[in-house]
């Protein structure tokens, strides 16, 4: 792996993203707008919004990164640029970490806008520090990226890649505690929930929600998500083949 090539790759991916003005607009505006909508829906229940809004702050970059990573990488595979890159000094890890840096930056920008709106204008409240929320959101976004990277190997068209959303993303969103607390689900489902990395992102956020100081439990939960990022990234990198049929 070469840091120089990794950063060149990240720069190229970011430039691709920035050239698509409409996508940039959607990335920055949509989560803030939806969180504002949720806040208006939960007008009478600000305590519920404190939870739901907070989880959404992490859920959006997770979904975003999953989608843009799987589609961008699929384009590299089908457009021949991946084959070309494999004949250049670019290593698989250069490419994967380049993706993580580029889309991690995008996720940070998205989270910054959404969090600013949520905390300042919509009155979202946590006992713990905002930076902890931010950190959890970025790590969760990286998990979305790593999952998208891995999944893109199993799609041959962009249409298929989109169809992976309901398979890999939606169940995690339903089971992570966004729509219903995990401890009030059917027993067997709690087991499933415990096996999904996004659940730990929500647990970490809940720690920040309830405790003025950053807790050891939060770090432990975040470590689980980070572990999932590493596993999915390694699996994803393994799907990048230098030689194909």
């Amino acid at each position, binding site marked *: 792996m070469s840091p120089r090539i990794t950063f060149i790759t990240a720069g*190229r991916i970011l430039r691709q993203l920035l050239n698509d003005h409409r996508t940039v607009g959607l990335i920055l505006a949509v989560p803030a707008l939806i969180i504002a909508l949720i806040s208006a829906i939960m007008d009478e229940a600000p305590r519920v919004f404190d939870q739901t809004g907070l989880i959404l702050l992490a859920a959006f970059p997770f979904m975003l990164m999953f989608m843009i990573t799987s589609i961008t990488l699929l384009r590299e595979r089908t*457009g021949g640029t991946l084959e*070309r890159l494999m004949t250049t000094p670019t290593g698989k890890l250069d490419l994967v970490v380049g993706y993580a840096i580029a889309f991690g930056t995008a996720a940070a920008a998205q989270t910054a806008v959404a969090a600013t709106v949520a905390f300042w204008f919509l009155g979202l409240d946590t006992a713990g520090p905002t930076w902890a929320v931010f950190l959890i959101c970025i790590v969760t976004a990286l998990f979305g990226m790593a999952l998208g990277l891995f999944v893109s190997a199993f799609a041959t068209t962009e249409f298929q890649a989109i169809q992976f959303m309901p398979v890999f993303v939606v169940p995690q969103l339903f089971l992570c505690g966004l729509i219903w607390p995990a401890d009030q689900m059917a027993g067997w489902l709690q087991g499933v929930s415990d096996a999904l990395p996004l659940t730990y992102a929500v647990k970490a956020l809940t720690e920040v929600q309830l405790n003025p100081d950053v807790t050891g439990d939060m770090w432990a939960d975040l470590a689980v998500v980070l572990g999932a990022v590493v596993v999915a990234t390694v699996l994803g990198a393994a799907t990048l083949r*230098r030689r194909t*049929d």
Partner: protein
Amino acid sequence: MPSTPAIVVTDLVVDRGKKPVLRSVSTEISAGTVTGLLGPSGSGKTTFIRSIVGTQKVKSGTVQVLGHPAGTKPLRRRVAYVTQDASIYRDLSVKANVAYFAALYGRSRHEAMQAIEGVGMGDHADKLAGNLSGGQKTRTSLACALVIEPEVLVLDEPTVGLDPVIREELWDRFRALAAGGATLLVSSHVMDEADRCDRLLLLRDGVFIADDTPADLRAATGTANLEAAFLHLIRALEGVN
């Protein structure tokens, strides 16, 4: 003509989708030459080229490039590959595309601009690659390889869809690169380009039916042009079968 082999292919067998595509081909390509790879559509030209750059899974046989097994790490700075379909980023400008590949090899933006001028794309440098015509995409893809000044340059049908003037310029360029010591392997459908090669590999149904200089090929078949020579060889083979 220097005779050190830059590429050595020995008993190469490749299957694609369980069907044999290359059935035990062998050849040596000398350094500092331009070799033409000719053959009908589906004969295995791209497959052969992918084996040379090390992106093709091979069943058996060996491919050595500059003394290393094809596609291995030391070769990735020394071998450049231009795919048949332009492999460039549609959502980047021509300049950003070439500058990216240039940067991977430590080449400057200035060198990237020179490569763009070199393929006659200077006026379109700021255009998004997705908005280019087919031939312009091909030239951009070519510039991405030329900018790195590789020792071995492998080009899969680089002149398809280009007008005669640019084709002529590119062939002059290929000749100049070979004169400077680079080794070029160029696949083509077009027989009039074959005459500009030092050596020709004629691929048909996964085997080389000729591996010779253009002059010797014409002499051996007693024909005036290469198109006729190729037809002669094919008819002779079909006569045998």
